[in-house]
């Protein structure tokens, strides 16, 4: 099949065709070196993932609002067609993302800014969170290492769970597939499993609760429909990095805790790949499939973008005595010679390594445990 635009470009008349983008898109800037740096993962209006768009393609899409093809292939400040933009536009036309027409649906973009925050245009954040989690949950099931280290991480959290007796009232904020909620229920506790997505709550309901019970709550985590002080134990495991305002969610969890109740938070933290991105490129990654940290979209309010001491300070300001800040799995996912160098440091520190500053801040995941002060 011949390429429609390369056929069209030599034709001066066709270059005057008015083109517009045809679909409402959500674009998430990617950091997946070496192949995808600065490209965008695109989702359609219905939440279906469409593939990856190059920066040039996104640039063309941004301008495709009833613009002649001639202007789109030239780009700003050029008289003649830019071959890359010609290729990009022809691929967009072939995929049906750009077509003749007057209306241009909105384009939502999510990308890091140089200041460590997140640039966000349109209502992309909310759309993306819903779309991406439905898609990701559809493709990678429970037990997958791409889903928040499910299988491996439970032993790290279990020591902080309430003991089996007496039965406690627990809350899992952002329950997902219910892996952790079910583990709590098996200890005999009553667990409120909160999630924004109904399909995920249906998955939770299908799980065995053992001696306990699980009650699903479909809700926004900033506004959980439960009264103050009704929960003995609240946890949020690899969720705060995916919400619009993690500190607001944290405050909501503290509101629900009774005095003396305990709070357990697990969030991803900087790993070597992210660190290199920051050093070499001066920006934070938006998509690292272990932790999609930066699209939460309230600039400078993400625990993983902030010094962890600030997170601890915030928890204390909320009335939580922080008892543990633990970096987990520090030596995994490192490349040589970093892994060997850190292994030597770890050996020199002995078992205290995992809990000694600053090494406790280098884990792939960080666990906060605290108690609500009376």
């Amino acid at each position, binding site marked *: 099949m011949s390429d429609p635009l390369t056929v069209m470009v030599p034709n001066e008349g066709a270059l005057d065709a008015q083109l517009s983008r045809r679909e409402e898109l959500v674009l998430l800037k990617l950091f997946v070196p070496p192949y995808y740096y600065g490209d965008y993962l695109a989702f359609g209006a219905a939440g279906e993932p469409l*593939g990856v768009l190059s920066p040039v393609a996104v640039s063309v899409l941004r301008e495709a609002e009833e613009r002649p093809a001639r202007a789109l292939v030239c780009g700003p400040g050029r008289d003649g067609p830019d071959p890359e933009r010609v290729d990009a536009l022809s691929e967009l036309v072939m995929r049906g993302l750009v077509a003749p027409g007057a209306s241009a649906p909105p384009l939502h973009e999510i990308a890091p800014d140089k200041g460590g925050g997140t640039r966000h245009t349109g209502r992309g954040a909310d759309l993306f969170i819903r779309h991406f989690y439905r898609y990701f949950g559809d493709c990678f*099931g429970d037990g*997958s290492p791409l889903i928040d280290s499910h299988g491996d991480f439970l032993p790290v959290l279990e020591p902080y769970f309430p003991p089996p007796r007496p039965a406690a009232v627990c809350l899992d904020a952002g329950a997902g597939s219910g892996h952790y909620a079910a583990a709590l229920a098996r200890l005999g506790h009553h667990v409120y499993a909160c999630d924004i997505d109904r399909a995920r709550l249906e998955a939770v309901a299908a799980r065995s609760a053992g001696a306990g019970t699980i009650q699903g709550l479909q809700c926004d985590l900033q506004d959980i429909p439960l009264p103050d002080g009704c929960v003995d134990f609240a946890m949020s495991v690899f969720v705060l990095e995916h919400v619009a305002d993690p500190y607001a969610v944290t405050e909501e969890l503290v509101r629900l805790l009774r005095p003396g109740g305990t709070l357990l938070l697990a969030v991803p933290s900087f790993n070597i790949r992210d660190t290199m991105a920051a050093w070499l490129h001066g920006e934070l990654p938006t998509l690292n499939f272990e932790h999609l940290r930066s699209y939460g979209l309230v600039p400078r309010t993400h625990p993983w973008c902030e010094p962890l001491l600030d997170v601890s300070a915030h928890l204390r300001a909320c009335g939580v005595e922080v008892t543990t800040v633990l970096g987990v799995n520090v030596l995994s996912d490192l490349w040589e010679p970093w892994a060997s160098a850190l292994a030597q440091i770890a050996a020199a520190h002995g078992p205290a390594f995992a809990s000694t500053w600053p090494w406790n801040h280098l884990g792939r995941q960080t666990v906060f445990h605290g108690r609500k002060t009376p």
Partner: protein
Amino acid sequence: MTTRLRRHVEALDTFWADYLRTLCQASPAAAPVGPQLDLLFGNLTRHEVEPSPRLPLTIRCSDCRNNRGARRDSVCSTHVGAVRGTLEARQGVPLEVDYEPSEEGSCRMIVAIAGTRDGRPVVALAQRADHVALGSDGLAHWADDRRAGVRVPITPLSWAILQAAAQPISVAAAAARLGVEAGAVAQVLDQLHRCGWVRTTFEPDSPTS
């Protein structure tokens, strides 16, 4: 597989193949193919790998929970891409996946060596591994495997092929240089590859290969 022409609109399966290949190369897995794929996809589906010592490899997914209705395109496209990237990292060769969906959630993937890259035919190039040194006294021929710490007597043909593979070389080029049948060269290279003495890369065909 380090160079690849990028498109401006990349399909989902290509993206996931690239992502998983990069991820798996950073932390190579030692598990057999089936368990590794089961681990990657969690409880989404089960992978049955039909035992075969060589490609093509047939993988059957059974009891897939999500390949139905509107979800199929994105789920299966992601699945096929992730399988391809994972296996490319393991095999070190460009692969293509022929995918046959089924309504019952029991789909079949046939994984084979990709004959082309970016539209250009690829050719397999063999190169002697760094830890293998050759020796000969005119009558006997041997290879020193420094990794295993052993000296192994080898046939004159194997010795000549390993000598020729000091630089990357195709089966056809080696056969022409040594004046032997290409089938014989391929058979010996297969054995050498299996014992880790030869690395194989796949590059677009060129007059020099």
